[in-house]
């Protein structure tokens, strides 16, 4: 007979878990006691939200399921934002929470909260385990559900008496079988043929690639497909990295802060191939005018995404990688769409992203300098706001899983803890968190975690002393009435030093490169406080509710 806590730890090991991010408390004491001399590495965060984000960062960077652990009540509730973040971006994590003993459930016991009820709408599935004998099966199912199909977070709530309760080993099946859960991986043959037929006739085809390409590890297939059929590719925020930035067919990001040429291409295209993307409102702008001349092929593993926001001509439900492989098998090499590609080249030349060069310290310059310096030898994480958009626009990403950001939920405070998780997935490369001065203060306590665990995250704060993205909207749409968006100056280097982290404050262009050099040369974590142009905006921009080719802050159209 074994205790539930021991069964839990053994089950995690059987799933191949090496690192978990967590924070202890009363009802998880039995689990922590088991962790004390287990081979699992436990990283003690400073706030449970960070544990969830770290598990998420680990999952995004590695493609494996991330794990976090918290106590009941306040601990579990602190995970909620992190779980919702993972849910919106389809990231596989397993969140383990302690719960009050089963005989007290529903009694408003000390530190009781109904975390399975609370997380029902933000998990792919969740469990309240009622006996130690169920634990190994539930953990096996949780990892299976989180990591297959359209991936997502799964929460397992474990009452204290389940951790202390005893059970014999339960024989588990080789493969999990759940009669209510059967994802479709292979695309329908007829639909694939229909797609190829449309492709054969298209004159202005365009691939719109989302995060699904990255989560199904389909970047090589995507690039091969695009190249063979000579179809330009625009990516969503989540899809960045699925095609190298310098690839001639890459148009960069589309949507609200997309490139002008990507948005023009969407508007003029006659065939859009949406791959692992979900027609989010930040991408489409006014949905009626999105890709108005295009027939649409939609490849996605989640049937519920097909036709949700936009009428689809050829739906293909399946794993993006498997479907692209099938398409490649059946496809013939096509002549380049000369006129279309020429037009796109013209747009690219005449509507590039702007990078002001007037001697002032502009964030675009900072991002480009970092990009040129580290090339493909780093993973970049971001916070949320202008810092995120400038990075998405100006950093040159070469590979999938090297750009880690909270897209669907847009969670400020995501970056630093996610970067910690990324480090454990990719200890071989430096990890940079591109932050805003607002966002970094949402989880700045994690400076403690990176110091005590020697996690060499490099924090790049684009400090404009504003909640910059909100200020930008106030400037543009609320008559410059800066209502509660100004932040007082903070000496971030001093905060870093208080935790024992080195850092540097940067106030001019010629200090930028040396700062990054110092960051890379430093073995441990490093904090850079860049005092950027305070009222710099992210352009181009599609105002809310406008068509995506109606951008402001771009180049005059010729």
């Amino acid at each position, binding site marked *: 007979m074994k205790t539930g806590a021991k069964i839990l730890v053994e089950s995690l090991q059987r799933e191949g878990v090496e690192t978990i991010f967590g924070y202890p408390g009363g009802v998880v004491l039995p689990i922590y006691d088991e962790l004390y001399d287990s081979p699992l590495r436990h990283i003690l965060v400073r706030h449970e939200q960070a544990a969830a984000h770290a598990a998420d960062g680990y999952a995004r960077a590695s493609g494996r399921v991330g794990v976090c652990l918290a106590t009941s009540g306040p601990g579990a509730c602190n995970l909620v934002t992190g779980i919702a973040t993972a849910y919106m971006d389809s990231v596989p994590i397993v969140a383990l929470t302690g719960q009050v003993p089963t005989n007290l459930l529903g009694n408003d016991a000390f530190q009781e909260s109904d975390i*399975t*009820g609370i997380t*029902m*709408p933000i998990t*792919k*599935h969740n469990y*309240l385990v009622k006996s130690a004998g169920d634990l190994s099966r539930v953990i096996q199912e949780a990892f299976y*559900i989180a990591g297959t199909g359209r991936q997502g977070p799964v929460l397992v709530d474990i009452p204290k008496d389940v951790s202390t309760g005893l059970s014999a080993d339960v024989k588990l099946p080789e493969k999990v079988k*759940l*009669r*209510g*859960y059967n994802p479709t991986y292979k695309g329908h043959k007829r639909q694939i043929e229909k797609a190829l037929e449309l492709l054969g006739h298209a004159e202005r085809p365009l691939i719109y690639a989302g995060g699904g390409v990255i989560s199904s590890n389909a970047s090589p297939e995507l690039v091969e497909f695009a190249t063979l059929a000579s179809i330009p590719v625009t990516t969503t925020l989540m899809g960045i990295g699925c095609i190298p930035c310098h690839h001639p067919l890459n148009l960069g990001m589309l949507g609200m802060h997309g490139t002008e040429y990507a948005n023009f291409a969407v508007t003029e295209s006659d065939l859009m191939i949406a791959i692992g993307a979900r027609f989010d409102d930040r991408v489409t702008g006014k949905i009626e005018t999105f890709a108005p001349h295009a027939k649409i092929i939609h490849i996605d593993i*989640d*049937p*519920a995404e097909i*036709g*949700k926001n936009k009428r689809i001509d050829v739906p293909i439900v399946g794993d993006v990688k498997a479907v692209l492989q099938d398409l490649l098998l059946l496809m013939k090499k096509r002549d380049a769409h000369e006129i279309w590609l020429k037009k796109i080249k013209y747009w690219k030349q005449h509507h590039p992203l702007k990078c002001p060069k007037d001697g002032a310290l502009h964030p675009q310059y900072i991002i480009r300098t970092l990009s040129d310096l580290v090339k493909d030898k780093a993973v970049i994480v971001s916070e949320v706001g202008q810092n995120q958009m400038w990075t998405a626009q100006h950093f040159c990403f070469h590979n999938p899983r090297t750009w880690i950001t909270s897209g669907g939920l847009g969670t400020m405070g995501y970056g630093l803890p996610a970067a910690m998780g990324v480090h454990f997935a990719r200890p071989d490369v430096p990890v940079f968190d591109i932050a805003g001065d607002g966002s970094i203060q949402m989880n700045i306590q994690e400076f403690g975690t990176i110091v005590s665990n020697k996690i060499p995250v490099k924090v790049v704060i684009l400090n404009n002393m504003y909640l910059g993205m909100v200020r930008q909207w106030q400037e543009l749409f609320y008559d410059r009435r800066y209502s509660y968006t100004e932040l007082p100056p903070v000496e971030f280097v001093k905060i870093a030093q208080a935790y024992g982290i080195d850092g540097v404050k940067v106030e001019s262009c010629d200090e930028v490169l040396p700062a990054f050099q110092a960051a890379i040369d430093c073995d441990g974590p490093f904090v850079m406080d860049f005092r950027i142009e305070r009222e710099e905006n992210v352009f181009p921009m599609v105002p809310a509710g406008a068509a995506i080719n109606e951008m402001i802050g771009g180049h005059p159209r010729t």
Partner: protein
Amino acid sequence: MKPHTLSVLVENKAGVLSRVTGLFSRRGFNIESLAVGPCEEMEMSRITIVVIGDDARVEQVMKQLNKLIDVIKVTDLTENERVERELALIKVTAEPGGSRAEVMQIASIFRAQIVDVGAKSVTLEVTGDTEKIDALEQLLRQFGVKELVRTGRVGILRGAKTATSSK
């Protein structure tokens, strides 16, 4: 916009009903009627849900239901020939020598059973489709309806077709 009757086969586990109803409220769907009970398989339950919406919205909610791990199968009965029934218990003021005779007469026309008789009231049990029960209720209002209890609608396909799990 028309009512759709969805037959949802689910795992018979704690919390499944709240997963299903939570999904409706979260996605802004109104449930017109809901009925839950055991079904032909021991470990499963059947939930019958009536929703009103255009076809695209109903299709979306069916897909979302299908994504729930504990949902085994979703069938839109509205697409097919089917039988649908509700049951109502109605307590009506009906005094002997007063309206009682007339109430009993109406009951028999509607094939409603008298299931309880009090000093000043009778209780009727009626089954049928929604329209029939609505019509009976309307007629009884004039005498004074003291209490009305209606079950949700349940439905089954006609002929050999079923809304059971594929195995």
